[in-house]
């Protein structure tokens, strides 16, 4: 067994030092009949090359995003990750380090987290950011709980432009009831939330660009929320947009949560990703998750530690702000490295390139008979309406190796208004040929359908 260092001889020597006859003696306090007499019914250990062959066979049965034209977004985006990012995060000292509870031997991770917090705060335009959450959806649920603690009010209103998965996660966390208002899906980008705010409202949750790609007016949302003593939580599932679109913090947001996957992290079928959370300085004691802070060591040298842990479960137990413990350290590292490589200049270029390709996509889609573009505004993602149900069209195009976007009905199965809708994204990886191929296949599929 290549991962187990002991020889049988050494095991026997160690048992002798312990004073035990056999390894089984060490399990003496386990009820006899609970100890397995036979090995579990699972395959036996295998050499590396056989395991590799098995896993490769499984992987080979999937259509990778890079295998053909690809337009799916909807909260997870296919971007280029520079080779140096993946190289660096596989260094032993990053990959195999524990949570930095012992700061003297964890300054690498801690300084990186301090830099990450700075990047996230600057990107979102907020005063402080934490050291990451699991992902954007759980960060949204945690933000909602945080808003309840801050306002001592209960009502939460979710915009109809919020990612349906995010809405579903908040529903699971909070439970259904009068204090959770989920507005109906708003694929046309209709303003739906401002006149719902009342004196009981703790927070409104607005996504921009929203699930359907529309850019939302955060200033109006912030003003309306604040006028009623409520908070504005802004959700961003495509962080690259922040290179081109105004920062939520500059428009009055109180808590900003993002899915950070787009920077530094692969699609990974949905995880692991990295949630970003930023807020106002006055709110930090109600913030969940780890925070890294600057201090000095006994010699007066600058150093970093995890701080304000009196908010956390390992100190406060049932009074903690959240039960969160492990978060997304390595994904935060990948984010931070990629963001360092981009820098401000690179991020702005990347954002413009994404938008540029999305404009090309929108214009090409406009040439396909029967396709209606619903967006007046977008960053790199948009919604189209077909004259027919979208899901079969998507299936048909997948057979031609074109992954043409997400049929909204997959996430909103009970909403007839969504049945003919497709959400599509373009990124820097989208080529003119991809777009031409999509238009051609879509045209063919729709004309076939018309016949």
């Amino acid at each position, binding site marked *: *067994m290549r*991962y*187990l260092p002991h020889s049988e001889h050494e095991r026997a*020597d160690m048992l002798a030092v312990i004073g035990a006859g056999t390894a089984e*003696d060490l399990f003496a*306090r386990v009820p006899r009949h*609970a100890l*397995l007499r036979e*090995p579990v019914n699972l*395959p*036996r*250990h295998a050499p590396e090359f056989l395991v590799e062959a*098995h896993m490769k066979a499984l992987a080979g049965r*999937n*259509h990778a*995003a890079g*295998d053909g034209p690809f337009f799916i977004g909807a909260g*997870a985006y296919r971007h280029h990750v*520079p080779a*140096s990012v993946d190289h660096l995060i596989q260094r032993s000292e990053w990959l*195999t*380090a*524990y949570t930095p509870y012992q700061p*003297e*031997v*964890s300054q690498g991770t801690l*300084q990186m987290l301090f*830099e990450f*917090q700075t*990047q996230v705060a600057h990107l979102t335009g907020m005063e402080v950011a934490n050291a990451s959450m699991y*992902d954007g959806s759980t960060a949204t649920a945690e933000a909602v709980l945080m808003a309840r603690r801050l306002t001592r009010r209960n009502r939460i209103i979710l915009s109809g432009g919020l990612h349906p998965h995010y809405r579903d*996660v908040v529903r*699971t966390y909070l439970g259904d009831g009068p204090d959770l208002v989920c507005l109906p899906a708003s694929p046309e980008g209709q303003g739906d939330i401002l006149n719902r705010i009342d004196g009981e409202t703790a927070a409104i949750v607005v996504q921009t660009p929203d699930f359907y790609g529309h850019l939302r007016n955060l200033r109006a949302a912030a003003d309306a929320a604040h006028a009623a003593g409520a908070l504005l939580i802004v959700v961003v599932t495509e962080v690259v947009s922040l290179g081109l679109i*105004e920062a939520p913090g*500059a428009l009055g947001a109180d808590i900003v949560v993002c899915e950070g996957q787009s920077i530094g992290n692969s*699609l990974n079928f949905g*995880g*692991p990703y990295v949630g970003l959370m930023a807020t106002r300085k006055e709110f930090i004691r109600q913030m969940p998750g780890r925070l890294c*802070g600057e201090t000095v060591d006994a010699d007066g040298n600058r150093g970093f*530690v995890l701080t304000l842990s009196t908010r956390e*479960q*390992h100190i406060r*137990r049932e009074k*903690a702000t959240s*039960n*969160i413990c*492990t*978060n*997304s350290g390595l994904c935060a590292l990948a984010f931070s490295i990629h963001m*360092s*490589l981009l*820098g*401000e*200049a*690179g991020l702005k270029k990347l954002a*413009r*390139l994404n938008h540029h390709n999305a404009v090309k996509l929108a214009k090409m889609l406009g040439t396909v008979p029967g396709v209606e573009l619903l967006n007046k505004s977008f960053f790199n993602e948009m919604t189209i309406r077909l004259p027919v149900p979208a899901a079969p069209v998507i299936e048909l195009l*997948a057979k031609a190796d074109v*992954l043409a976007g997400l049929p909204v009905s997959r*996430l909103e199965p009970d909403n007839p208004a969504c049945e003919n809708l497709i959400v599509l994204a373009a990124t820097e990886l989208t080529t003119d040929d991809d777009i031409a191929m999509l238009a051609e296949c879509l045209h063919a599929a729709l004309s076939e359908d018309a016949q």
Partner: protein
Amino acid sequence: MSMNNQGRPTGVGTSDFTSTSGSSLLPNEPLLFEIGDREHSGVDLPDVAIDGSFLGGFERQSEIDLAGLTEPETLRHYVRLSRLNYSIDSGMYPLGSCTMKHNPRLNEKMARLPGFADIHPLQPVSTVQGALAMMDELAHWLLTLTNTAAVCLTPKAGAHGEMAGMMAIKAAQDAAGQGHRKVVLVPESAHGTNPATAAFLGYSVKAVPARDDGTVDVEAVKAALSPDVAAIMLTNPNTCGLFEPEVIEIAAAVHAAGAFFYCDGANFNAIMGVVRPGDLGIDAMHINLHKTFSTPHGGGGPGAGPVVLSAALAPFAPVPFVKKGDGPLALAEHAEGQHLGRITAFNGQMGMYVRALTYMLSHGGDGLAQAAKDAVLNANYIKARLERVFSVPFPGQPCMHEALFDDSFLEGTGVSTLDFAKALIDEGFHPMTMYFPLVVHGAMLVEPTESESKQTLDRFCDVMLELATDARAGNAARFTSAPLNAPRRRLDETRAARSPVLKWERQEPLPAAAE
């Protein structure tokens, strides 16, 4: 003056000079924002012009203020920072409760196959049949190892798995008209996440005291049970490193009272392939793939915390999950019947599933059992070598995969548990877990895992014994000033908390951006 040019001998040299930039191997590294600026970039991208007509007037007006580095500068910054970290690959991590075992590199290679890393969670299900098959295979291993009825793979970490399991319990009780049950029993030795999870779900937490031998008394559980109790959250093996000998009786008592048994599976590494938790009567248990199944800790995540469920709780599992029928595999994405809704977007920690399954296939069922036995052997070996000097709070019984000591051997030395642990750093080891579990004063919890060789264990024990001897010989300064050989001396945590500095602040006004 010493020189080392072209074969000249190197002298020892004398100097009163103290370096301010660290040594050439461990340099002090400035912050990213002190070396990068707004013009530099490590990517080459075409600079396209856009007209803004689709931006709705929301174009960015505020400054971002991000620092950029070219690729060589980036490599150097992050390589230099990495050298300030301890890691499993550089030494033993005797962190009790954390299971810092070897992270096989085949796992990393497999997770990066494009067929796993470059697939989108919302691709047509027909294009990801291999991914669903992989999840199904992982589920099969977890169910077989635990002898349970169902597994929810999606929790993002152990605490998230606890939440999912406890939500299933709450849903089951609500469905059975038992929604009035508002109390969760939690032994005092539990992980902090247990009471935090129970409180999050609106339960009040009632502590169950431990016996003098560090385990939970079934009579104490029976005394605490009432018609108001929804569940017990019990860690087994427990956080004192002991198998709960009355766990089956406790499960029976809990079930007889109409409550559920949530088992914290953080310590599953001690028993995988040896004991199946389902045989002990558990109803739900999360499994930390980043502990037991070797996915890397990564400096604090990502983790993964699949939660296995008994037949009674299986109907309440959160979506999504893989559905098997005669045809292609399907994904249940919407909660039907009694199933709970989503606890996260998409499909959970796929990248961690790949690593964990790779690890399982490498070990096989036989190797996993051997790993558990070696983990237990290693902990008992440390205990046997140290217990004549180190005080053991619960003597006279074998431990499981971690050995618990307390600080009574340090009494009168002026050396605290913390000082002692920091002195380990100077000897090349990561400190053990300190002051946890809370039920033991000055606890030191040592978990070697199965990955450590006898040679390493011996060196660790030699160092521990030498330190104990020195502490008792009155050399307190060695401990109270430790560490001296780490990249930093002890850090002022009070200052960090009292006036928090949570990000870099620009001292000069922001210069105009040039592109």
